[in-house]
């Protein structure tokens, strides 16, 4: 579980960096309970990151309301990234 969190934390950091975000933050700043605003992520930044996952995903992925509400923290963002990947993998294996 911790390894998965570290994996996605690094992924989130790399994605954000690729978009020119997180100029001051480090991977260690991305703790699960950290509010996204505390590391400089606006709601638009979060949408960009999640949309990148959606673009690459297979099948119809509708957001659970709990996912959406959770996007206010780093841990929530990472959970949504994980969920999209898991649902996408299911779609591919079914197809």
């Amino acid at each position, binding site marked *: 579980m911790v390894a998965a969190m570290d994996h996605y934390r690094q992924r989130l950091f790399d994605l954000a960096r690729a*978009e*020119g*975000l997180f100029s001051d933050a480090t991977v260690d700043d991305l703790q699960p309970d950290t509010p996204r605003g505390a590391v400089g992520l*606006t*709601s*638009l*930044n*979060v*949408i*960009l990151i*999640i*949309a*990148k996952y*959606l*673009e690459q995903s297979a099948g*119809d*992925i*509708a*957001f659970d*309301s709990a996912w*959406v*509400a959770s*996007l*206010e923290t780093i841990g929530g963002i990472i959970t949504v990234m994980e969920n999209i990947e898991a649902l996408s993998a299911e779609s591919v294996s079914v197809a």
Partner: protein
Amino acid sequence: MNRSGAAPSIDAFAAVLGDLECDPQSIPGFDELWEALGPGADLATMGCENFRKMSSPIEDYVIACIDQTLERHGTAATDVDHIVFSMTDATLGLVGPDFVVDVLKATGMVRCIPAVISYQQCCSSLTALHYGWQLFASDATEHVIVVAFDFRSDDRDRLRPFALFGDAVTSCMISRRSGSGLRLAASAITMDFDGLIGNDSFASRQKASRTALQAASDDAGVGLDALTRVFPSNLFKPLTLFNSAAAGIDKAKLHFDTTFRTYGHCGNPDWMLNLLDFEATVGIDEADTFLAVASAPGFFACNLLVAQGPGSNNGG
């Protein structure tokens, strides 16, 4: 007086875009504006390559668009009973006091009653279609034209964190003429005051969209899984994808890539531009079911449209 007795249907869609094809880099101070307003990503990744800009007064484009709808429908201007204009709040402030008289005079719609629907940002055109449809509660109503338009007078106002604005006009006809066309099966809009004042959240936006979609789905008795295609507002591609997923709309059903890439976000005309593009590239079949969607800070609106075959009379 009910002259034909037939149920209404919607067709004769038309569009007139801004005549100048522009590159976003042509906007004065583009780099600084994008750095200040943009979400941090390169504009090229947002799905918008160009935008259209009007070089003449808005009346010229509106008149040309109405003429196209009249011609496509084969109806004389003097037979139009009502015309409903729709636009964003910003465009409403740019329209001159003689606008309606000039348009009615130039098109020859001399017995047509005008109305305007605004203050619902990009959702205004969906409400305008609903309003136009409701005018058929009177047996005397035979022809209603719905016009949606938006434009910017200052290029620096085109760039927003959620989209790059272009200029366009679209229109369509609602009439009792028996034949193919679309039936407005349901219409719903929600307002989120937190969004109006910039205090909305992911959760409040999702609630607004799901509430409207559920209401339209219940009214029409049609589930989102039964939709043929969805015509959204042309916001930056990542936002459109995200908003759709949050609303519960399948991304595979979205039809907006080409129009957004070529024209930008044209505000109220967007859903009609997307419908026209779908009609031209794929074609509309009998019993196709479409969802026209618009979203703006504080609003979410949707109209559920069902294609009818020739001679159908599905009730209004």
